[in-house]
């Protein structure tokens, strides 16, 4: 469990980036952190593996205060995939790139080999095993960055803007991918602006504005609240907007994506109830 209590954080320059943050994230949860630019989302996730320590309050990972553990120890549990893969790719080959974290965490050599094999297969990067990471396309670099974290099997997988620069097909694959990791009992925490993507996965949504959490609940409740979303420069998913303009989203069933909408419309068409 990741637990944050009364967390405040001020950057050395004097900018107060987090104010009174309270939240818990359990193993096996699927969470999206959303909000306008500069709301403190990235600052918040950097608290989870101790890259930043709270100015006030505390953050605990499985009961360990982040101030009392090294970033390396915490990162073994909380794997953060940063937004821009170019900030971390450096090795000569894709294989070496993935190996980096395993070496740092002291995995034995035979386990390293088998883990690399399975992660390359899982992420579809097998054919690039011996290529230079810099020769990959933008989307592939992003997947490699993900693979290089996923390979050490952290209990909490944190992703900063995973859908940026990905085409729709890659997004679908990413979604399947995250579901699969989630099914294995790992927590997924993603920071994103991509409302439509969140409408597909329907995770627990945490909304942030100016360093504070302004809402925390299921996607079905948060994403359709137009005023709430607008207050942090977001909009509900298009389908939800459309259906609420038709007064169809008021019922006990809220449609967020195309499949949901299809159900609503078909049931009306057949004259039955939605659920």
């Amino acid at each position, binding site marked *: 469990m990741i637990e944050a209590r009364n967390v405040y954080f001020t950057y050395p320059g004097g900018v107060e980036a987090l104010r009174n943050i309270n939240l818990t994230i359990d193993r096996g949860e699927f969470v999206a952190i959303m909000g306008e630019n500069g709301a403190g989302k990235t600052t918040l996730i950097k608290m989870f*593996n101790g890259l930043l320590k709270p100015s006030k309050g505390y953050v605990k990972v499985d009961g360990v205060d982040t101030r009392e553990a090294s970033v390396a120890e915490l990162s073994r549990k909380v794997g*953060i995939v940063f937004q821009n893969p*170019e900030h971390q790719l450096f090795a000569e080959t894709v294989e070496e790139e993935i190996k980096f*974290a395993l070496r740092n965490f002291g995995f034995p050599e035979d386990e390293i080999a088998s883990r690399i094999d399975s992660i390359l297969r899982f992420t579809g990067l097998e054919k690039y095993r011996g290529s230079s990471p810099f020769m990959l396309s933008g989307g592939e670099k992003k997947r490699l960055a993900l693979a290089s974290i996923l390979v*050490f099997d952290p209990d909490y997988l944190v992703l900063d803007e995973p859908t940026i620069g990905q085409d729709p097909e890659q997004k679908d694959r990413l979604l399947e991918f995250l579901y699969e990791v989630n099914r294995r009992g790992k927590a997924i925490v993603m920071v994103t602006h991509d409302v439509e993507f969140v409408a597909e996965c329907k995770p627990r949504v945490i909304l942030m504005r100016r360093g504070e959490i302004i809402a925390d609940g299921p996607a079905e409740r948060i994403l359709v609240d137009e005023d709430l979303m607008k207050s942090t420069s977001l909009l509900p998913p298009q389908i939800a907007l459309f259906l609420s303009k038709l007064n169809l989203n008021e019922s006990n069933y809220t449609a967020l994506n195309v499949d949901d909408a299809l159900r609503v419309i078909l049931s009306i068409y057949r004259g039955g109830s939605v659920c």
Partner: protein
Amino acid sequence: MLSFLELFRFRRRDSPIHRMDPRVKALYLLVMSTLSIVYYSLAAMLTLFASTIPLIAVAGVHREWIRSLRGAAFLASMIIFVNMIAGYLSEGFILTMDTISYALSMGLRFLTFTSVFSIFFLTTTPEDLSLALEKLGVPYDYCFAFTSAIRFVPDLALEIQTVIDAQRSRGLELEKGNLIRRIRNYIPILIPVFIRSFTRSIELAEAMEARGYGASEKRTSIYELCMKRSDYMIALLLLCILALSILIRLLIGWY
């Protein structure tokens, strides 16, 4: 560690010092640098260093100034330390008062440089700087390269921090191991930073060309630098101070 780079971060403000002609400020830089090299006693260094403080106050950049001094403090203490060791060894294993005061003044000289350069860079817009260089006859391409290099220093600092964060999240421990291991630890930081810098400069070049950079041979600028009466006065004053100080140094022999 990266706070030393604060020195180059310009913020738009208004003060008599901000409004001063950049060429006069460059002259100030030159005069102060010359003085801190010509003189080397502790008293002289203290005077020079203290003389920068009122200017910082007038310009209202004390916060940034303190931050760059704090960054320079480590290097200054290294300079003091090395000078003390050198003096200690050359004097036959005794620490004399002379050695101590010399070492302190060397450290203070570095801080004076930092302070003077802070005044210059914190109060001069990159555009003004570029114009001043152009007026001094530097080809525009070089002026542009110089000012954009300064312009990108804060971005670079931010980027280095992001890379460090990303690699630490993959279990990299920079302070681990013996000296050689520690140097090797920086490879995963340096490679992404270098590659990003190259990509960034190519992107910048493309963006500049897309906006017509180099289309006409002779460039004109929207703003022209023009020396006001006060600028001439200050320049004259600076030259007098310089001449007087050198005379004192040479004729009276104070140091």
